[in-house]
C-alpha cells in the first residue's frame, strides 16, 4: 500500500485540510470571536500547564467511563432479553420508546431535583439517556441471530456458557461496537451538559466558566483536548477491537 492510499495518510490529510480552512477563515474574519489556530494553541498550552485542564479532563473522563460502562452493560443485557423474548419485548417496547424520546435535559433536571446535586444523580442521568439507544441496537442484533448456528450448539450439546460466548455473543459484536461508538459520543455530550448544570468540576463546568468570560480561545482549546482524547480512544481501543471482532469475517480465500 502506497503512502498516498494508506488510511493514516488520508486521515492526516483531512486534519490538515480542516486546520488550513480554519486558519484561512480566522485570517479572513480577523475577529476575537474566531481566534486563529495559534491563539487556540497558546490557550491550550496555558490551560494544560497552568490551568485546571488536566484535572477537569480526568474528572469528566471518569464520569464518562463510569456511565459508559454501566449503560453498555445494562443496555446489552436488556437488549438481548428483549431481542430473544417476544413477550418481554411487547411489554417493554412502549416504555423504551418513551424513555428514548424524553429530552436529555429533562432527565438531567429531574435527576438533580429528585436526588440532589450529587455525583450519583449526574451518573444516573447520563445512564438513563444512554441505555435506551444501546437497547435498541442490541435488540435488533439479538433478533437476527442466526438460528442455524444456534442449532449447531444444540445438536452438539454445548453448555449454556459456551453457546452464549462462542455462538450467540460473537454475532452481536458488530452491534455492540456500533452502539459503543455511538454511545461514547453521546455520553461525552450529555456529561458536559450534566456538569454544566450541576457540578463544580469537569470540562462542562470549565466551559461554562469560559463562556461567562467569552473566552472563545479557551472553549476551543478544551474542544481540541476533547477531540484529541476521542481520537486516542478510537485508535487505541475501537480500531484494534474492530480488527479483533472482524477476525474470520473479512478474510479472503486462499
Amino acid at each position, binding site marked *: 500500500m502506497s503512502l498516498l492510499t494508506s488510511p493514516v495518510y488520508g486521515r492526516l490529510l483531512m486534519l490538515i485540510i480542516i486546520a488550513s480552512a480554519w486558519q484561512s477563515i480566522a485570517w479572513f474574519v480577523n475577529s476575537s470571536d474566531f481566534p486563529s489556530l495559534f491563539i487556540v494553541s497558546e490557550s491550550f498550552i496555558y490551560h494544560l500547564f497552568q490551568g485546571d485542564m488536566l484535572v477537569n479532563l480526568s474528572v469528566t473522563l471518569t464520569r464518562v467511563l463510569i456511565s459508559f460502562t454501566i449503560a453498555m452493560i445494562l443496555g446489552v443485557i436488556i437488549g438481548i432479553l428483549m431481542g430473544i423474548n417476544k413477550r418481554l419485548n411487547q411489554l417493554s417496547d412502549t416504555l423504551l420508546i418513551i424513555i428514548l424520546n424524553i429530552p436529555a435535559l429533562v432527565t438531567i433536571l429531574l435527576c438533580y431535583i429528585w436526588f440532589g446535586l450529587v455525583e450519583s444523580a449526574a451518573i444516573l442521568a447520563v445512564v438513563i439517556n444512554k441505555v435506551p439507544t444501546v437497547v435498541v441496537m442490541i435488540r435488533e442484533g439479538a433478533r437476527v441471530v442466526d438460528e*442455524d*448456528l444456534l442449532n449447531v450448539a444444540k445438536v*452438539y450439546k454445548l453448555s449454556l456458557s459456551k453457546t452464549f460466548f462462542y455462538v450467540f455473543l460473537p454475532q452481536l459484536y458488530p452491534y455492540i461496537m456500533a452502539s459503543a461508538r455511538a454511545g461514547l459520543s453521546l455520553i461525552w455530550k450529555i456529561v458536559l451538559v450534566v456538569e454544566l448544570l450541576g457540578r463544580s468540576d469537569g470540562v462542562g463546568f470549565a466551559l461554562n466558566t469560559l463562556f461567562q468570560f467569552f473566552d472563545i480561545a479557551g472553549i476551543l482549546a478544551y474542544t481540541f483536548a476533547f477531540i484529541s482524547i476521542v481520537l486516542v480512544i478510537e485508535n487505541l481501543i475501537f480500531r484494534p477491537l474492530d480488527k479483533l471482532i472482524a477476525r474470520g469475517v473479512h*478474510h479472503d480465500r*486462499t
Partner: protein
Amino acid sequence: MIELDIAIKDKYYANSTSVVLKDIAFNVKPGEFVAIIGPSGSGKTTLLNMLSGLEDATGQKLLCNGKELNGCKEYQLGYVFQQPRLMPWLTVNENLQLVLPTAQEQKIETLLAQVGLAGKGDYYPKQLSGGMQRRVAIARAFAVNPELILLDEPFNSLDAPTAAKLRLLLVNLCKSCESSVVFVTHDLSEAINLADRIIFMSNSPSSIIHQVTVDLPKPRKECGSLELTWQAKLMNQYPHILSGSVASS
C-alpha cells in the same frame, strides 16, 4: 453402537395444520448406513431434525436401543447440515474444539489429517473453499465419537469430483467409527454408492413408498458397472420413484 426404531404417525409443520410426515416407520440397525431419498419438500430434513431434537417429536415413537430417543440427549450425535454451519469467527481448530468437552489438540490434528486439511487448523472458514468447509463440518461431526450420524444432503451443490472425494472420505470415517448413519439425499447414485439400505419417500404429506437393500459389495465405485446396472434395474421397475411414486407408468 445404536439401533433406531422410528414410527411417526403424523408430524405437522410448525404453527400449521398441514401434515409433513405421515405413517413413517423404519429402523436403522447398529452400524447400518441408511439413505433416505425423496422429492424436495417431502420432509427429509424435518425427519432428521426430529431425530436430532431440533424439531418437536412429541407423540411420536422414536426409540434408540429400545429407549426413548429424547432428542438424542443420551447419545453422541454428529450432524452434517446442508450448509457447513461453521462459526465464522472461530478458526478450523476452534470450530472442532468447540464441540469437544476438553482440549484435545492431538485428536483435532488427526481428524484434520484424515479429512485432508492438515496444516489448515489456523485458517478461518472464509479462507477455505466450499469443499474444504464441508470437510471441516464432517470432521466436526466425527470429532464427538458419534454413535449416530445424520447427514442432510452434505454434498449438495458441490462439483462432481469434490463430491466424489468427500463421499470416499465419509465412507472411510464411517468405517473407522462404526456409527449408525441416516443420510438424506436426492441423488440416487450417491445413495447406491454409500448406503446399505435406501428408503424412498413420497411427496408431502410424506410416507415411505419403498425400501430396498443395496446388495452390492463394498467398496463401491463411482459409476461402476455393477452400480449402474443396479440403478437401471431399480429405475426400470419404478420409473417414477424419485418423484415420490411407485406407480409403474
